[in-house]
């Protein structure tokens, strides 16, 4: 009953000061909304990067020719030629921690079928490549060891290549196409993967037997573009990398003073690099969001402080007719809590809508986390409640007559 009276008093006060109520709420809405939207965008891209890095195969290890300077970027493919098929064989033979190994050669090629003309990318590797890179065949079949030995002109193509050469929806299996003028037969179609985070179309690829590509499409026959391996489990990846390094140094007869002439990267390394990039982005977005929160908070504070004179007199009137200090405080508390929570809720809604709009119209992945909701909600509620409560607490401690005289 008593609390019902309190709620009634607070509700009336909010209702008759709609503009003040609205403006205070607006600060909270903007603060909460922007934090949620920003963090959703940041978190979305982080998870998206992680997912697409993971889709390359979580246990995979990539070995590139050339050394990467500390923390730097690998030189363009082909700028070094140090890896050979023998290296791949040595890794397969001597490293127990890897289950699959394949050398790979790759280059960009021109694909022609009749009038259709398409520039794409071919990888020549053993069929293990598919397992290592987490690729699957959706129709047709894989090539065999016999195909490799015979340097057979067969290939597996990605959906994008199929669409551009044979037309969307057409079955490419058994069809032929010309890769740099050499006729190939399509025996398999890769399962569609879509774009990765970096905008690369993962379906714009042709995969063919290693020997086929090396003998028929590459100028040098000795060196390979890269070696792919798959660790036996995620836990042994770091150890496997070390072992591969040791094996390759022996293979290349490097002395103690020589730098590595190859780079061993695991999926986790790549994930970490992009993870830290997206972390920076999230921090950036969070700072922007934090500033909006602060601005919202200052807005709330301003409105609360501007109304202190009016409110102090109001408190004086209420106390003169019998309100206790406690009654006044509870009333202001209810008002502040109501404003903060309703504003917070609307802010959450607005943040979600904004994030959804970014996802729908910007094609940007968004993920709304409960922690971002909690954080922004808690902050603006704290600001709203504090600035609602603090002047009230001061006024409630005054003699009624001093509150009435307040200027």
């Amino acid at each position, binding site marked *: *009953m*008593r609390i019902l*009276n309190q709620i*009634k*008093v607070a509700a*009336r006060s909010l209702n*008759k*000061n709609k503009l003040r109520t609205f403006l205070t709420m607006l600060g909270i809405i903007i603060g909460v909304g922007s934090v949620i939207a920003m963090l959703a965008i940041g978190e979305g891209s982080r998870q998206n990067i992680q997912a697409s890095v993971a889709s390359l195969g979580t246990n995979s290890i990539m070995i590139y020719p050339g050394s990467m300077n500390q923390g730097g970027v690998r030189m363009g493919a082909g700028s070094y030629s140090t890896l050979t098929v023998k290296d791949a064989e040595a890794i397969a033979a001597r490293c127990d921690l890897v289950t699959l190994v394949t050398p790979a050669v790759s280059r960009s090629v021109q694909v022609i079928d009749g009038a259709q003309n398409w520039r794409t990318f071919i990888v020549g590797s053993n069929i293990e490549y598919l397992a290592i890179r987490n690729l699957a065949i959706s129709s047709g079949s894989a090539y065999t060891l016999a195909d490799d030995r015979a340097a057979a002109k067969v290939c597996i193509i990605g959906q994008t290549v199929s669409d551009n050469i044979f037309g969307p929806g057409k079955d490419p299996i058994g069809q032929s196409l010309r890769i740099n003028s050499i006729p190939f037969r399509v025996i398999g179609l890769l399962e569609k993967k879509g774009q990765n985070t970096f905008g690369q179309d993962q379906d714009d690829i042709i995969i063919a037997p290693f020997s086929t590509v090396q003998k028929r499409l590459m100028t040098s026959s000795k060196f390979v573009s890269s070696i792919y391996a798959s660790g036996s489990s995620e836990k042994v990846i770091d150890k496997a990398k070390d072992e591969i390094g040791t094996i390759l140094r022996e293979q290349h007869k490097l002395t103690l003073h020589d730098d590595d002439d190859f780079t061993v990267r695991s999926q986790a390394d790549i994930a970490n690099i992009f993870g830290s990039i997206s972390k920076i982005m999230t921090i950036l977005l969070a700072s922007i969001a934090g500033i909006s929160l602060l601005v919202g908070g200052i807005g709330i504070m301003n409105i609360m402080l501007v109304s202190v004179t009016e409110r102090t007199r*109001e408190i*004086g*009137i*209420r*106390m*003169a*007719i*019998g*309100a*206790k*200090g*406690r*009654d006044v405080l509870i009333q202001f508390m209810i008002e502040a809590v109501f404003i903060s929570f309703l504003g917070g809720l609307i802010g959450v809604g607005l943040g979600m809508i904004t994030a959804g709009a970014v996802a729908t119209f910007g094609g940007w992945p968004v993920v709304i986390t409960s922690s971002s909701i909690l954080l922004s909600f808690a902050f603006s509620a704290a600001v709203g409640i504090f600035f609602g409560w603090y002047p009230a607490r001061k006024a409630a401690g005054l*003699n*009624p*007559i*001093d509150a*009435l005289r307040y200027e």
Partner: protein
Amino acid sequence: MENKNIIVVKNLWKIYHTGDIEMNALRDVSLEVQQGDFVAIMGASGSGKSTFMNILGCLDYPTRGEYLIDGENALKLDKNKLAELRNLKIGFIFQSFNILARTSALENVELPLLYNNRFKSKERKEKAIKALQSVGLGERINSMPNQLSGGQQQRVAIARSLINEPVVIMADEPTGNLDTRTSYEIMDIFQALNDKGITIVMVTHESDIAQCARRNVLFRDGQIIENKIVQERKIAKEELKKLPVFQSEKEVK
């Protein structure tokens, strides 16, 4: 008239400190007000009338002295008990009305009832409507303060002061912002209340208005220099009849 003292004030002092200057606003004031009395406190501006009323209304504390209201020692009560006292025993009326802005007459009058637990929502509303009717505002219960004239706002304040059936009504220059006719209308309400037995203490500096009370107390420099029964008491109703009608509801802002 009964002999019960509603207000007993003994040796009351109020000293204001403004910077280095000490201001004795009340100097050793003693006063008794019996139940059913109607006291008008008079005096020049700055003589300490408001200071005295605010202490009587438990809105402020004296520096020294004793104050009993309806047998209770007001100066020994804590803030919460004092709030209860203001709520239940005192109806205070201000010169500047002090009703809540943007709040209907009904809700303003109802407000004191929300600070005690005695009535349900429906009863509160009924009581508030009755109180408004008793001050002649039965037609304006849903009006906002800015839709009401000064006299009407003061009636809202009077209705509010009556709502908890207080033992005493205290008014600090209730007609100070009102024109003559409206002032007498307010006095008419006061006299009707007083005839029903409600004790009233009122500050005014207009002797015509003071003549409507039963007793006049004169302040000078923070002291009571005179306390006498009004001889030729004015009846507000009759004064109203003498006034020209066109003056009605002209407001002094």
